Structures are given as C-alpha cells and as structure tokens.
C-alpha cells in the first residue's frame, strides 16, 4: 500500500518519469553491450574517421574503433562507477554523519573538523591527485570519487540526526534501554533514509561527471572504455570529426540529466512536505 502510493507520487511528476525512461534505456544499452558488441571495444575495426550512419551506426574514431561499441560499453562503465562510488561515499558519509550527530560533543567536533578538512580541498583537484598517486585504474577512480564525495552526505546525515535524536521516539527508545548502535541504525537512520536516497541519486550523476572528467584528462583506466575517455581522445579532432566528441557528450548529457530528473522525482515522492511549502 505504501509502496503503491510512493510510486503514484513519483509517477505524478512527468519529468521524473521521463528521466526514469531514459535511465532504463541506458541500463538496457549497458546490459546489451556484450550481446550487440561482443569482444573488445578498443578493437580497430575499420578505417579511421568514418562518419556516423555509414557502415558503422555511429562512425569510427581516430584509430578506426567502432564508436557504437564504445558508447555501449561506456554506458556500463559510467553506470557502474557512478553506482559503486556513490555507495562507497554514502557508506562513509552516513557512518561519519550518524556518529557525529548522535554523540555530539567531542566526537561531533572531531568528525566535523575532519569533514571540513576534506571540504576545503577542491574536490576535482583532489580526485586528480588521488588518481595520479594510486595510478589510473578502475578501483582508484572509484576510490577517488568516493573520497571526494562523502563530506556533503556526512553533513546532511549529521543534521538529520541532530534533529531526530531529540524526538519522542528516540527518548522512548532510551527509556526502553536500547543500545546506542541499535538506536542509530534501527531507530534514527531509517527515518532519514529519504533524504539520503535523494542526495545519493544526485550523487550518482556527479560521480559519472567526475569519472568522465578524469577519463577526459587521460586519468581513466586505460583498459576500460568510457565516455569521458572517448571525448578526451576525440577532442583534438573537434574541427574535423565532430562526432568523436559529440556522441559520447550527448550520452553523458542524457544520462546525467535522467539521473537528476529521477532524483528530483524521488525528492517529490519521498518528501511530500516540500511540495506543500
């Protein structure tokens, strides 16, 4: 019953539905990549610089690699990195925010100073430094994105905890003799989940952008096809072969837009109070 009403509330926003539709398409594309484009997306299949809608649907790039294969395989990379990095950031951010907000005092002070320390470093530059130190690979990209993305989550969760822990149900739990951890994870956390989900969904979009930017700068995993890599490799030919940058650029734009729309739809559905404001 509750689930139905959540879906109904989400479905009420048209933009959210459009976003979801695009996202599902991207998911299907990613899932079908090994079927439609088996083998290595880096494989040189034809002459370089063949324009789109010829022998190859989206043309070939500067080395003669199939752009369509790159887009399909890149979709999986983008979504996977976006999701995993976001989950990691959510995990770190939620833990730190929860403890800081629940215990307050010295713990709060220490954890928040740590969070601020991370927040003062420009996040993208920090991500570049991390990837450069760890040497570019899939895991170092995920680690870098997670490390620069958790502070806002921590602050958000801390704020929620600060306000929730003074509520009656928490006081009731204290009276019942519930342990700290139980209180944090069973009582308070479920009550701030909606805020975390909304922020997390938007974080996926940011993570995809950061991954693309890193790959664009040549700091992606050299063995994994990604949209950012395709743009980076094609940018020198912007004047002569526009599709090398334009096609993956559009892919990133649509995906990030879709995730943002879904995020907003979720926000409307999960935080109905906002709409009445």
């Amino acid at each position: 019953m509750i689930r139905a009403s959540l879906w109904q509330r989400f479905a009420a926003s048209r933009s959210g539905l459009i976003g979801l539709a695009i996202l599902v398409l991207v998911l299907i594309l990613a899932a079908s990549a090994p079927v439609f484009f088996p083998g290595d997306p880096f494989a040189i299949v034809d002459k370089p610089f063949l324009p789109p809608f010829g022998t190859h649907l989206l043309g070939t790039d500067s080395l003669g690699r199939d752009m369509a294969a790159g887009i399909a395989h890149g979709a999986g990379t983008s979504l996977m990195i976006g999701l995993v990095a976001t989950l990691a950031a959510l995990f770190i951010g939620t833990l730190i925010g929860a403890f800081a907000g629940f215990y307050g005092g010295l713990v709060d002070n220490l954890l928040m100073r740590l969070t601020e320390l991370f927040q003062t470093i420009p996040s993208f530059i920090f991500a570049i430094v991390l990837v450069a130190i760890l040497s570019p690979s899939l895991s170092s990209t995920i680690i870098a994105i997670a490390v620069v993305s958790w502070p806002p989550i921590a602050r958000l969760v801390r704020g929620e905890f600060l306000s929730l822990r003074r509520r009656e149900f928490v006081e009731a739990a204290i009276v019942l003799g519930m342990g700290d951890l139980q209180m944090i994870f069973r009582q308070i956390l479920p009550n701030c989940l909606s805020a975390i989900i909304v922020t997390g969904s938007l974080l996926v979009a940011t993570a995809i952008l950061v991954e693309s930017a890193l790959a664009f700068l040549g700091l992606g995993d050299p063995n994994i096809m990604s949209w950012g890599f395709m743009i980076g490799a094609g940018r020198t030919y912007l004047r002569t072969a526009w599709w090398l940058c334009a096609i993956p650029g559009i892919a990133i734009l649509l995906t990030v837009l879709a995730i943002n729309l879904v995020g907003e739809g979720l926000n409307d559905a999960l935080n109905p109070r906002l709409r009445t404001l």
Partner: protein
Amino acid sequence: MIAKAWSRMAAAALAALMLALAPAAEAQKRGGTLVMITQPEPPTMAAYLSTSGPIGQVTAKVFDGLLEYGFDLKPIPSLAESWSISPDGKTITFKLRQGVKFHDGQPFTSADVKFTIMEVLKKYHPRGINTYRDLKDIETPDASTAVFKLARPAPYLMMALSGYESPMLPQHIYGKGDIQHSDYANKPIGTGPFKFVEWKRGEYVRLDRNPDYWKKGLPYLDRIVARFIADSATRTAVMEKGEAQIAGFGALPYNDVNRLAKLPTLAMTTKGYEMVSPIVELDFNTRKPPFDNEKVRQAVSYAIDRKFIIDNIWFGFGKPATGPISSNFAPTGLYTADVTNYNVPDGVERANKLLDEAGYPKKADGIRFEIVHDLTPYGEEWQRFGEYVQQALSKIGIKASLRYEDVATWLKRIYTDYDFQLTSNFLYNLADPVIGVHREYHSNSIKKGTVFVNGTGWSSPRTDELMNLATVEPDPKKRAEEYHEFQKLVVAAAPIVWTHELTFPTVYSKRLKDIITTPLGIYGNFDHAYYEK
C-alpha cells in the same frame, strides 16, 4: 690594347656598381622584430648547465660555438676560422677568429675556449661530461689558437661544437665565483648575433640585435622576442593571427599544424631537426620471459604497422625507422637501410609463425600469453600509441593490458627497478651515434637509476666491440663500416622495435626568409633571417 682597357673599365664599373648595390640589398633585408613561440618556458638561461629543451632555442642566439653545421652534417667555421686534426686523431688545433668581442666589449680569446670547455662543459654540462671525457687539456699557445689534447681520438667531438651544444662563455664573467650559481646565469653574455635584454618571467625573453657582431652586416633582424604561452590553443591562435612568426618543436598541436600550414600566410617545414633525430620505439625487457627470446621480440617487431602509427597517431609527421640509427645520418655514411626489414605486408603471419616456433602456441582462447604494456606518460599520442600496440599484439595472440603512470614512476620502473615487459619510449640520436645511440645498446650503459640509457638490458660482445671501435675511429669510411655491421646485428636481435623517426613541424610566416638554415633549426642563431619587404 684598347679592348683590354675597355674591359678593365667595364670590370671596374661593374665592381663599383656592385659595391653601390650591395649595401642597398643589405639595407632591404635589415630590420623587423621576430616573435618566436618557445614552449615551455625555459627554467633557466644557463645553457652550459642544462640541456632542458627550450633553453637552447633562446640562448643559441646569444652564444656562438666554435663551429656551425650544414645540412650535410659537416662542420662550418664560426668562432673557429679553421681547424686541423692530427693523423692519429688525438690533437685538434683550432685557429680562432680575431677581433671577436663579447657583448660587454671584451675580446674573445683562446683562454675563453679553454675555460668554457675544461672548467664548465666537461664538468657540468649533462652531455658535455661524456663528449669531453677523453679531452685531457686545451693548450693555448697564443690568443687565437686552441689545441685540444685527447687521450683517444674522438671523432664525435667535432659534432658537438655548435652554439647550442657547446656555447662559448666569457671567462671574465662566468669565471668569477661558483659557475653553478653565476649572477649571469639568467643574463647571458656571449658573442652571438643577438644580445640578451630582459626576461619577463611567464611572458617573454627579449633579445636585441648585436651591432658589433663579427659577421659584418648581420644579423638582419632588429629584435627577437621569445614568447611563452602555456595554452596550446592560444599558441595556435597567436600564430594564426600573425602575432608570432615562428613556432617549432611541438609548440603547436600536430592537428593544428596541418590546418595552419594551409593558410596563405604561413609555411611549414620538417627540416631543422637533423641533429636531434628522435626515434619512437618499443623497448623490451630482455632480462625475463617472454622477451628474453629473440624470436618473440622479432615477432612483435613484425606485428607493428609503422604506416598506421605515423598516419593515424602522429598525423603523418614521421618516417618508418629501420633500426637504431636515424636515416638523418645518411649524408655522413653512418646509416644503412640494409638490415632485417620488419615493416612488411605479411608481418602478422610471420609473427605468428615465429611465436609458434618460440614455443608459445595459441591456447584454446586464442591467447599465447599475457603481458603488461607501459605507456610513455607524455600525452595523448602516446596513449593512442599504446592502444594501437595493444590491438596489434592481440592479432598475434598476445594479450596486453595497459599501464599508465606519472613520469617519475614510469622512469623508475623502466630504468631503476627494471619491472616492466614492454614500454613505449623515444630517444634522440643527437649529433653523433656516440652521443645519442650507444647509451641504449652498450653493456656499460646498463646503469641502474640513470634514465634514457640501456633499459632493455640487451647487449652483445660484438656490438659492444663495434661501438668501442667506432668511438675512436678517425677514418670516416671504416667508422661507417663498423656502424653498418652494428646496425645489422642490433636489428636482427631486436631488443627494441623502432617504429618511426619522429619529424617535428616548424610553422613560420611566409614573409620570413632564410630562417631554417641549419640542421639545428630553431636551435640555430637566426643571423641570416630577414623579412621580405
């Protein structure tokens, strides 16, 4: 009688006419400011201490050398008017030009030559340490004679005396105090056609015409400004708008070069790098399997399509390489193309056959073995190169994964830890094989921790011997024979895949004449350059 008188008069009249016209022609060439794009900004102006790329582009205009060089790589007189080499090759006597003055008005003498080479270049110049290793002393019987005394003949030494490689310094300026911290390190004083005026960090270096230059009437230009622009798109735009008149050595992105070269105002040349001669290569670690096996290395050599790399990755700026010595040495006779040719149409079949023979059969999944291929961390082309190599190797059943690290980590991996299997690389041949080639193949260049030496670990007694002989061989013909045999042996053993000789485009204004006149190109002194009026 009368006819004779007439002809004499006519000759006199002609001579007078020529005398009258000559200064006019000179005057027509005189004047103008040349803006040169130098990339990146030099770290210092101390060309006698550092060989960092961009320094020489500026300082070669300020400092002269004892010699200059023609496109045939033969020496031409400069500060040295003439020279003679003793039959045993151990004594070289230079007659110095008289009346040459440094920019501060002091005369240039043999004492300055001795100071520069013995006290500065032999001790501190990164390449000079090697070039002048066998130079025991320089005798100065008088102010205009310098006699080089060598422990062993050093034919390559005659190739290292340009104003770029061995700039002649005034002893009365640089001889005071510690040469490594000279007050004049960034205010160079030489005998060259242009005087250093100022260096505005982050913006430009200004050089003005030296009116007392020893080449009468030269230089033609009034001023040279070397501009430093960090952003490559801006550099292209500045050239396109005509705000700068020359840019070379990778200052402009390759794809922009092809576009700029089509503009009616600009011209492009790939000449002027004959004394640099960079070769792009793939280096094997020959210490461990699978590349300790000659056949495996040959197979990889066969699998690489040189033309594809040049056309699709380096925008056509290159020429297939045949071996360790660049074809730029053809005029000297040292180069030979008569070596194993790996650049053949049926390379993939040959490679597969060699790998089968070497004992690496294809397994059920079509893969023979897996390797890690390290990319040269120098930018985009190198990444594309690595991606291409990965694909080329997959065709012969070698599965390569790519590794991309920062420069310091990469250098340590290749030249200190030897923890690699296959890496891309590029090295300069420079002015002579002794200076630029031996370091990659001689067993005494397997030096842990020294970069850009023998990282493959490959050497053989015979090639070592040939290099030792060629180092001291004064007879050019015998020396050429030694190098021909060396090339054959090295190419057959294939410790390296020589993919191509890199050519650098220099883009310049069509109004500029006589700008690239030596094999040093933009490392030349521009004394003959002028604007067509």
